[in-house]
């Protein structure tokens, strides 16, 4: 009722807000150029790598990496299509740990956060502090390594890539604030009076309300798993369990690894020198980056929202 007369006023103030906050026309151009140049510097390296991957090996040897190569070629990609067994294997490992790990991480983190957000949980204080303590002190790489290899015996198993990142205490605390803000006690109380169980309250009432927060933490988890090379560096020796990022790391320090598993029947088997190693390496960088480049502009909305969903304090 009151909204109708207010609407034109609101619109008016928004228009003037743009004018009041913004630069004058002249400085607007100058600052646009500055921001544009920096933004371009963030995008350019990716396209540069794409271009390198599409350069012929011959041009790479003669002219080095060029922004506009003398000779284009897709030989790197055809090479990978024919001999990319290890790449496919690593891609499989990465996709598996990303999907599976994200589900585990999101489930553990949000159920924990939900419990400590509920005012009628008797031990909420204990579990909150239990979680907060983990942020004050870092146990350190050596201690973690000893526990994972010697106590849990996860060395050279797929679990070594999943379990160390199966929960994030920081996200649990952020989500706790989010749950408290987003889901009012009265809704939960009403459901309880109607006889809903706690599990049902979580699944049917709280979850739909918490979608933005859960989307954000699963996003971070997925990125963490996709980009992980550190746990592989520590715990994985078996070629079959090497994730994409770690595979890239290995061929960075030793490009010859690319030709390690070439089958005898391959057309490159007779002349290893013909393998477009430089371009292939960059093509693999492109392949492991493209999923992020394509998807992140879409989940940016959630991501930016997630940044502001809740401080550590209430």
């Amino acid at each position, binding site marked *: 009722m009151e909204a109708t007369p207010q609407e034109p006023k609101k619109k008016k103030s928004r228009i003037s807000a743009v004018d009041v906050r913004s630069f004058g026309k002249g400085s607007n151009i100058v600052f646009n150029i500055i921001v544009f140049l920096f933004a371009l510097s963030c995008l350019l390296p990716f396209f*540069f*790598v794409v271009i390198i991957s599409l350069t012929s090996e011959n041009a790479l040897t003669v002219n080095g990496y060029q922004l506009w190569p003398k000779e284009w070629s897709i030989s790197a990609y055809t090479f990978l299509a024919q001999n990319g067994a290890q790449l496919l294997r690593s891609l499989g490992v990465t996709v598996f740990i990303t999907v599976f790990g994200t589900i585990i991480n999101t489930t553990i983190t949000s159920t*924990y956060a*939900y419990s*400590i957000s509920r005012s009628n949980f008797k031990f909420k204080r204990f579990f909150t502090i239990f979680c907060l303590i*983990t942020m004050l*002190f870092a146990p*350190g790489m050596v*201690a973690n390594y000893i526990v994972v290899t010697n106590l849990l015996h996860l060395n050279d198993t797929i679990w070594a890539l999943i379990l160390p990142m199966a929960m994030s205490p920081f996200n649990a605390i952020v989500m706790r604030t989010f749950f408290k803000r987003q889901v009012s006690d009265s809704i939960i109380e009403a459901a309880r009076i109607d006889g809903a169980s706690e599990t049902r309250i979580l699944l049917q009432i709280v979850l739909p309300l918490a979608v933005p927060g859960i989307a954000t933490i699963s996003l971070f988890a997925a990125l963490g798993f996709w980009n992980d090379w550190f746990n592989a560096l520590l715990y994985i020796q078996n070629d079959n369990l090497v994730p994409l*990022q770690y595979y890239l790391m290995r061929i960075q320090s030793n490009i010859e690894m690319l030709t390690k598993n070439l089958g005898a029947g391959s057309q490159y088997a007779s002349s290893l020198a013909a393998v477009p190693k430089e371009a292939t390496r960059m093509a693999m960088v492109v392949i492991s980056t493209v999923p992020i480049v394509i998807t992140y502009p879409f989940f940016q909305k959630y991501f930016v929202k997630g940044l502001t969903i809740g401080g550590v304090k209430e």
Partner: protein
Amino acid sequence: MSVNQGAATGESRETQQLEKLAQQKRPNKFVKMLRNNGTFILFCLPGALWMIFFFYIPVFANVVAFKEFHFSPNGFIDSLITSPWVGWKNFEFLFKSNDAWLITRNTVLYNVGFITLNLIISVFFAIVMSMLRNGRLTKLYQTWMLLPYFLSWVIISYFVYAFLSPDKGLINSMIVATGGKRINWYIEPMYWPYILLFIGTWKGIGYNSILYFATVMGIDPTYFEAAEVDGANKWQQIKHITLPSLIPLMTLMTILAVGRIFSADFGLFYNVPMQSGSLYNVTQVFDTYVFKGLKATGDLGMSSAASLFQSTVGFVVLMVSNAVVRHIDPESALF
């Protein structure tokens, strides 16, 4: 009549049941507690277990810094018990070597650089982007600027290599084209402090500036209107309205960063310089040093001593910086 009877017996049965329930409940507090909190405890259990195995046990496993540790095939407890105590010996070795000073200096100085650059540049971009006239363009810039934040250090190190490769890199080609001499980037330590500071800051600017940007956009526009009416120019508006409203977030981000001043981003210092030996003096930080001891040289004693030293000093720094902030402005403190 029969209906009435049925109702009566039903009622009495109900009261009987209630009494029975009450009798069961009263003596057993535990069952009642479990009934009210069981689901929550169940929800907390996986997370709590994870923290026990990936935080609490590792914290205590730090005693290896005081032991000459060997891995026992009989498992964790056996390894801990059978490794002999050596007291502070590991620490003595660490501090007698030049490494301790070198890695502390590098870690702290790089972090001071990151904190300063990050603060200035992110706030600059946040304010500038909030003042650009075209909102859609601003959003596009932000999307571009976020890309490096989402990529792993492995990928970033390939990006850097595309520019700095000694024989194929773009920068050397440009130097040669203008008549200069090739620079062998990966063995020249003098450039690396700048390269690492640049790359480390560049990767995070998109993220940090969006954080500040959200706060700037949240400022009530009437402040700016009033300032405009009073004749304040843009710079005065920034100085007296925008910056003061950013101070709480700037403080929070800075304490968080200062609390982590003894930890370095392992990927940046390990992957980007491609573990080049001649760069160790300028690229060695706590995390890379600990890793080297753990995986490459197998010097677990020194490595665990460095690790515990790092964690302890980091903890103290976090506590002190939080206490200082709480003293100045309790609202901005972490806890």
